[in-house]
């Protein structure tokens, strides 16, 4: 026979089996001398371990000074000794491996033998006397009840009690259901529960698939049998709350620069005030000067307007706009240009996309091959674009996205106002990660915890510049983020994403309607229903015998259908809100395993970032609120003026989008494994200034773009290249390749085909037979890239080829690749050809003179007149290429080719 015991040791119930095995082993007669904790073991521990692991120091939250400390374990809450089982006791394994003590001094073999002998002898009895240690029997009882929770309670629990059976408590289990008590204590063979399971009646086969429940394995059945035969003892009370705040995070940990509130220091002095236009310049220049460097000369106006358009709007300027700016002799022409761009609706489309990257926005579910499209989520994308255009203060922006549903009692407002709508749509920010739980095949606890983990990752990386993911399984190795802090932070979102009471993604929707709105809709629908009612009667009265029956019925049905289409429904939004005002208890998961619950955690923010206990306070958002208030508390904590990370992180990202690299180059990681800021004082000054300016991102653009630093030329100079070849000090503006969306949108704009329509459902895409994904060549299909369907399984080829992120969670910083598929696409694709053809048509309508055509093409694509040599080259090309077309009997036109070549040129793709 196959070894079934070994086989069923999957991830699910492995821990249980080990415990069961322990029970058996511990019952074996032991031959070793009896060793006891106080006289035999404690002296050894005192000599080697207590320096760090005394009750007072408790490094790693572990005290080895008492049995209860050993039983309680360290950070993860796993006991370091398993009585009767030295081989699986961490204490033994670590000392044997020489990993502990860490200073290299090993325990002698004799000492280790004593420890092992103690675990094999007196330990079991000694452990049974402390509260922290659960006897194997109690542990088994807890595991059995966890098994009931996962495999029985979906039908016999909180939501329903099939057959009137409730498996949540011992009392209700013993009371049983319609068929009698579920079990008889001490008599497994007479217990209905076990019989039903054994006969594969429970959990019922059809329900298992639908509710994502695995069958009860033989090992699990054995566990239940042993538990019942052993008297079906009550499970121990649930694990207590971890409340030792601060123990694992020292004051020294809080000293890391990014965990301290930013403070604006003095503006440094510079030697050459000529180069200093703004405070930003002073910070940068002082550092440059210390290296014997200075800014590069100011870029010319053509370069500046192109740079400004691409930075702020994501589209190249029209030749007319360029000409107007170049010729603008009025003072402050540049400042007015910036104002004009900041006021353009195109601004929100460009900067909305940056935010959507960070939020991980996509229009589809993302997991299964079906990759179901979410038809409602575009409202969040539109919300972001509107917020950017309106200059919504960043603190308010975050407040709405994290806890918009907790700001106002939306259920009892008379009307759904614009602001209320924003509030409710905004939590779409928390709905962006891949959520596979629509399919029962991927709706297990494991999958649900993954959704939570991804959401936490998006929040922490986009808002806090922290990478907390590793703390899911163990305390962070570099940053002071204990595992319990990770789960506390996760608990904030677990009131909405509750693994023990899961809501599938498409069911997480809300009506956007006030009381009055709903009443009006109901009244309106009533009048329609009043008209439908008589038709129903008429249909019912028809006789099948009537010759006209079919015709009459069809006509009436059609009439009815017409009326039904008039019925109104309140608009819906796909967003996030808590399930209840009181969240289910949430537990640390040892090693991040869904079936390995540790102690309970309460919602909280990372200890190392907390200025005071009061800075994060959960309170009921408003009277009778349907939510816990934990996300609102998080939002208020994050948007405190002196928060160490919030302002720094967004300021750094805005900087990154202007200069191609953040002041902290690792924009998603401000922790110890991140790269240090090149200009920490500037970062702090900007962060403080940003908060003082009402968290205004537009004001931040003004600060940055009016500096000399932003307005310098991009050419390399030998002096700078020798000292700082990678331009960390910003002695020049870096040359940057356009982003994917900028390339596509600008090509359409140059061709005169970009459609400016804003907002609404995502623009559909189609897959060509060869697998490329593109939009139709229609006005709708030629809208800006931000509006295209962002379906995870069918990324739009032109965007993906130029490094638009493929979102699994989110993207804080894009890569810029340089691959041959880009060149092939730009040269040969139908998309590129269409834009070149369209531009050529526009030009040839205006003029048939080759020289003028060349000038027009240069102006449209590159925003400048050709130099004489360039003009000659291009005219020659037009002439020769026309001849070649004739010679090859081909119908192409040379002007299209010229336009195509210019669209392919480095000068078009790279921004000086």
């Amino acid at each position, binding site marked *: 026979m196959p070894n079934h015991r070994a086989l069923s040791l999957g991830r699910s119930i492995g821990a249980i089996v080990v415990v069961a095995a322990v029970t058996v082993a511990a019952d074996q007669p032991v031959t070793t001398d009896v060793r006891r904790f106080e006289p035999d073991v404690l002296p050894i521990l005192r000599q080697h371990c207590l320096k760090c692991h005394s009750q007072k120091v408790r490094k790693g939250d572990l005290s080895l000074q008492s049995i209860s400390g050993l039983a309680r374990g360290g950070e993860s809450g796993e006991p370091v000794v398993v009585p009767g089982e030295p081989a699986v006791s961490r204490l033994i394994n670590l000392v044997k491996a020489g990993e502990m003590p860490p200073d290299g001094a090993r325990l002698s073999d004799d000492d280790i033998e004593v420890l092992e002998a103690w675990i094999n002898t007196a330990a079991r009895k000694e452990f049974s006397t402390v509260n922290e240690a659960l006897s194997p029997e109690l542990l088994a009882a807890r595991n059995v009840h966890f098994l009931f929770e996962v495999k029985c309670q979906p039908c016999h629990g909180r939501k329903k009690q099939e057959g009137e059976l409730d498996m949540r408590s011992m009392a209700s289990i013993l009371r049983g259901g319609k068929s009698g008590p579920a079990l008889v204590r001490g008599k497994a063979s007479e217990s209905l529960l076990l019989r039903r399971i054994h006969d594969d009646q429970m959990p019922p086969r059809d329900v298992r*698939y639908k509710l994502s429940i695995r069958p009860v*394995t033989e090992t699990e059945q054995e566990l239940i049998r042993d538990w019942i035969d052993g008297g079906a003892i009550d499970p121990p009370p649930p694990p207590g709350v971890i409340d030792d705040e601060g123990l694992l995070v020292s004051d020294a940990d809080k000293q890391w620069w990014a965990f301290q509130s930013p403070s604006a220091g003095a503006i440094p002095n510079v030697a050459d005030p000529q180069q200093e236009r703004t405070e930003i310049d002073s910070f940068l220049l002082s550092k440059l000067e210390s290296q014997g460097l200075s800014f590069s000369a100011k870029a010319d106006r053509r370069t500046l307007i192109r740079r400004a358009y691409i930075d702020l709007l994501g589209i190249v300027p029209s030749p007319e706009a360029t000409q107007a700016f170049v010729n603008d002799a009025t003072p402050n022409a540049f400042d007015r240009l910036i104002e004009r761009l900041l006021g353009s609706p195109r601004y929100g489309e460009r900067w909305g996309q940056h935010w959507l990257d960070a939020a991980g926005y996509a229009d589809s579910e993302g997991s299964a091959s079906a990759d179901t499209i979410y038809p409602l989520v575009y409202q969040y994308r539109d919300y972001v674009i509107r917020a950017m255009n309106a200059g919504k203060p960043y603190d308010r922006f975050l407040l709405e996205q994290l806890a918009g549903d907790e700001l106002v009692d939306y259920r009892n407002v008379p009307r759904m106002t614009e602001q209320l709508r924003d509030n409710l749509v905004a939590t779409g920010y928390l709905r962006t990660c891949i959520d596979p739980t629509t399919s029962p*095949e991927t709706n297990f606890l494991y999958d649900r915890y993954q959704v939570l983990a991804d959401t936490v990752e998006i929040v922490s990386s986009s808002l806090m510049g922290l990478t907390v993911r590793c703390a899911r*399984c163990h305390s962070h190795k570099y940053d002071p983020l204990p595992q319990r802090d990770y789960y506390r932070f996760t608990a904030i979102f677990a009131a909405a994403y509750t693994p023990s009471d899961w809501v599938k993604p498409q069911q997480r929707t809300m009506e956007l309607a006030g009381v009055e709105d709903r009443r009006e809709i109901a009244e309106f629908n009533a009048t329609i229903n009043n008209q439908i009612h008589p038709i129903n009667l008429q249909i019912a009265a028809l006789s099948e015998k009537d010759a006209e029956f079919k015709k009459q019925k069809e006509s009436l049905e059609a009439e009815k259908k017409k009326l039904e289409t008039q019925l109104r429904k309140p608009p819906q939004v796909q967003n996030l809100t808590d399930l209840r005002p009181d969240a289910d208890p949430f537990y640390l998961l040892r090693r991040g395993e869904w079936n390995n619950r540790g102690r309970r955690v309460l919602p909280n923010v990372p200890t190392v970032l907390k200025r005071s206990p009061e800075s994060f306070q959960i309170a009921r958002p408003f009277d009778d609120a349907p939510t816990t208030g934990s996300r609102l508390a998080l939002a208020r904590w994050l948007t405190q003026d002196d928060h160490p990370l919030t302002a720094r992180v967004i300021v750094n990202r805005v900087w990154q989008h202007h200069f191609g690299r953040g002041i902290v180059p690792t924009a998603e990681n401000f922790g110890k494994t991140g*790269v240090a800021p090149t200009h920490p004082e500037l970062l702090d000054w900007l962060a403080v200034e940003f908060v003082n300016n009402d968290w205004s991102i537009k004001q931040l653009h003004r600060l940055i773009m009016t500096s000399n630093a932003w307005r310098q030329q991009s050419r390399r100079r030998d002096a700078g290249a020798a000292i700082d070849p*990678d331009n960390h000090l910003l002695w020049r503006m870096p*040359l940057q390749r356009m982003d994917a969306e900028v390339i596509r949108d600008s090509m359409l704009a140059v061709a005169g085909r970009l459609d400016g329509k804003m907002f609404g459902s995502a623009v559909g895409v189609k897959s060509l037979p060869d697998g490329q994904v593109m939009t139709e060549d229609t006005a709708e299909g030629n809208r800006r890239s931000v509006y295209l369907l962002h379906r995870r399984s069918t990324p739009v080829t032109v965007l993906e080829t130029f490094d638009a992120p493929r979102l699994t969670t989110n993207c804080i910083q894009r890569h810029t*690749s340089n691959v041959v598929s880009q060149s092939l696409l730009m040269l040969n694709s139908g998309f590129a050809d269409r834009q070149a053809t369209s531009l050529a048509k526009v030009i040839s309508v205006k003029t048939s003179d080759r020289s003028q055509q060349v000038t027009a093409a240069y102006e449209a694509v590159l925003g400048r007149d050709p130099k004489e040599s360039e003009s000659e080259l291009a005219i020659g090309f037009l002439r020769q290429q026309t001849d*070649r077309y004739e010679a090859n009997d081909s119908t192409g036109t040379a002007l299209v080719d010229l336009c195509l070549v210019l669209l392919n040129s480095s000068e078009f793709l790279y921004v000086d």
Partner: protein
Amino acid sequence: MNYDFFNRRKFLSTIGRSLSGIALSDLLSRESGAFERDVALKQFDLKPKTSRFAPRAKSVIQLFMHGGPSQVDLLDPKPSLDKYDGQKFPGVIDVQQPEQAGGILKSPFKFAKHGQSGIEVSDVMPHVAKHVDDLCVIRSMWTEHINHEPALWMIHTGRTIPGRPSLGSWVVYGLGSESQDLPAYVVLDDPKGLPVDGIRNWSSGWLPPQFQGTRFRATGTPVWNLNPARAVPAPLQKARRELLAKIDQAHRAARPGEAELDARIASYQLAARMQVSATAALDLSQETKPTQAAYGIGNETTESYGRRCLLARRLVERGVRYVQLFIDGQIWDNHTGLESGIRGACARTDQPVAALLADLKQRGMLDDTLVIWGGEFGRLPISQSKNGRDHGRQGFTMWMAGGGVKAGHVHGATDEFGYAAVEERVSVPDLHATLLYLLGIDHKELTFPRNGLEERLTGVYEPRVVSEILA
């Protein structure tokens, strides 16, 4: 003046000198931090890299078998299935669709020993059976998930969650390309349609996009946009490129030290070369008639897979590092109609696969080309809907050939019924670590910094290189 962007050491030493007052010392002393810097600079390339230790294989051809080929009907004979046919399976069995599960189901095929090694193969794979002496059959594979997508993510990316880089992406990220005019990682998918989970099968995940698989189509133009959407005669295309080169070179000349612009110009040159070389690689008419016939080209059933197998050899010959073959849908997912399903799948693939092995061997290419055959999991010994088999994750079979693995060797075993791997079990991370090892890479060293973690293909697992199968 030297503007070498790719020299990390030089970069670091220069920065260390120039950024006084900034705590870079620990970055300089910590290799991982130094690498993170390169990532921050977003600079990656496909230049050939030196392996850590001598590689056994230079290239990989992965014959991916979507759906979960049934081990007990192909390469893992179980007489007990005949003996207990129709009886209840003795024990708990993890079934995906329990309501359709029946008793033990014997294989409709007969097994026989083949070659000097005497490895048993069922009669539905007569062609591959002739090459068992070149195969290293692993009968003790197991994986973590019973559903297609998570199991696909596991076998392709090392975890049961979506979005991670594929094995091929990791390999070319680690080793770069040997070819100057072809992509390093080529995917030959089925003209009939995408496999289950589509393009994610070869995604580079969060590795930079240049490491993702490039789809080559076995008919028509092999690469997206290789030729103009609207036909343009070659001399006119050339004239376009020449004009572009002149304009770009003038632009570049005014911007000294911009290596990125050189790379852009080079990428257009590569595009032109690829137009020739990819087309040439695809031109199967250069192969003799007997070779084509051996691969089954000319026979409707085997034509498609045969073309791709032959193309795979031609690509590896031209220096492509990683070639992956896919079949539309999931032909091995035989929930019903097991016998006809497997017969159909073998009819399409058996002869071409055998021809590929023979061809590689005859050309001396099998020594440094690793061929891998297998799917995301296997199937159960019990029936589903009477004449099918449900997914089985606890035990399944894969085989490898060439590239440093033992020939004519069987590793590991499943239990009496072929349900679960019980002897010398090989996990998917074990398999990945072994593949990387054969390519000269230590799986622990092939890392990519992301969100504060040093990510690896083998992730948080601690796999072992399956040394027993190394030649």
